[in-house]
């Protein structure tokens, strides 16, 4: 499975490193010319390839959106059709929005199989993953399976919390947001909320 990480900021290089360590081929894309992030990729995710977003996504089976939420609107939606897409973004600052980010992502990226996950762990707490519980929400069983396998292989403990609308349970303000929990505690918290 080939991974494309969109975003070379706080989160992207960390996830790229974890994926590389698990043996995945990884491409990283920032906004614009890949030369701008070549040095960042070389030092923070050695082994990953810096590409333009369209090239990274075209080659990938799994795409991770690790960009600031306010930049999401700048992505070209057509290129994601048929891809499994992880939405690791959050509204920032936390906003009383009518929809969770992933429902908006799915509505815009028509044809993509969106899974909300990895958004509720701070980047500084992702390494090492140490079997930390990670919630995931999505509507496509095949995409959920693929993302669960990815999360397990990079070292997390995937915990499904429901369909994409349940992704709101993982957003800022939720009792699981930023909390270091194992599977039993995480399942208990998620159950209490739903």
């Amino acid at each position, binding site marked *: 499975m080939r991974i494309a990480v969109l975003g*070379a*900021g*706080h989160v992207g*290089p960390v996830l790229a490193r974890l994926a590389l360590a698990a043996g995945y081929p990884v491409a990283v894309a920032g906004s614009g010319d890949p030369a701008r992030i070549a*040095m*960042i990729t070389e*030092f*923070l995710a050695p082994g990953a390839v810096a590409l333009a977003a369209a090239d990274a996504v075209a080659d990938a089976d799994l795409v991770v959106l690790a960009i*600031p939420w*306010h930049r999401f609107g700048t992505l070209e939606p057509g290129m994601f059709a048929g891809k499994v897409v992880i939405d690791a973004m*959050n509204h*920032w*600052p*936390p906003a009383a929005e009518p929809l969770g980010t992933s429902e908006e992502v799915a509505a815009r990226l028509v044809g993509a199989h969106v899974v909300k996950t990895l958004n509720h762990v*701070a*980047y*500084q*707490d992702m*390494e090492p993953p140490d079997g930390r519980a990670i919630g995931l929400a999505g509507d496509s069983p095949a995409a959920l399976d693929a993302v669960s396998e990815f999360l397990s292989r990079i070292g997390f403990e995937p915990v499904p919390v429901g369909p994409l609308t349940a992704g709101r349970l993982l957003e*800022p303000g939720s009792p699981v*947001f*930023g*909390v*270091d929990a194992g599977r039993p505690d995480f399942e208990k918290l998620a159950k209490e909320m739903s």
Partner: protein
Amino acid sequence: MTTTFGLDTFGDVTHDAEGRPLTHAQTIRNLVEQGVLADQVGLDFFGIGEHHTPDMPLSAADVVLAAIAARTSRIHLGSAVTVLSSDDPVRVFQRFSTLNAVSDGRAEIILGRGSSVDSFPLFGYDLADYEDLFEEKTHLFAEILKGGPVTWQGKTRASLHEQDVVPFTEPFPTWIGVGGSPQSVVRAASYGFSLMLAIIGGHPSRFAPFSELYLHALEKFGHAPLPIGIHSPGHVAPTDEQAQEEFWPHYLDVISRLGRTRGFATPTPASYAHEVGPHGALFVGSPETVAEKMARTMKTLRASRFHLKYGIGGLSHESLTRTIELYGTEVVPRVRELLG
């Protein structure tokens, strides 16, 4: 590179012996005393981080730094950080160049993009623009630092044409504070600014690739090697137990409140134990414990400067002065010894 040590504070409101908050005015006067004490115990740097909240009323830190400058002769004085994104680079330069004059060349400035975002609504900026604001304003600041008339055009303030920005003083050290943005590391290197790594959670060693990236980028951009610094929170008391017990209730209180707006998780005794332990980012403990952790972290990150961010909100002025004394007289000499 010479090894140097400082203290940073956000000027949190201090409490009296009965745990009642002091006034903003008294907190600020105490802060001046703390800066003077930092000089007396031999520290190299004292920095104040800009904030705009009732808990952290240090919105005009440069004025406080000037007051400290008037009563000291050796210690360097600076920001930690200046939120450049929501300020005017011209005014920022003018204030710090004036501080540089008042202090006879002891000013330093640490520029930040702002993880603490209270200044954005206050000055009418949109948080969604913060990356662009910082990029453009850093560029203007770098142009002003070159000295001489400035010509500059951008989207975030009025253009400048052959404009003098005064006072002209000797160049003062300029740093960029980085919390976790690789772009900020590259930006610091491209301008030839020093790198201050703000490490406030998680394993400090995860910043090691940032140091390598910075040193490589400096070379690539044709700059001579520049110092890497570390900013981390802490508290020092005679024993580990005392330091940890004193710090915990205030850490819990401050992080829980900040977490509501910034998405931090509420600390637990287990997460606290991890952060004060050898793999965490809190430098809380006896002088020996804090010194060992500092020396190890500085080596791992190839840092020659360390700033202990002391004075979490709710501690008393007396408790803070004890931390300053222990840090200057016991911790720093021990770190120097450990680093050889």
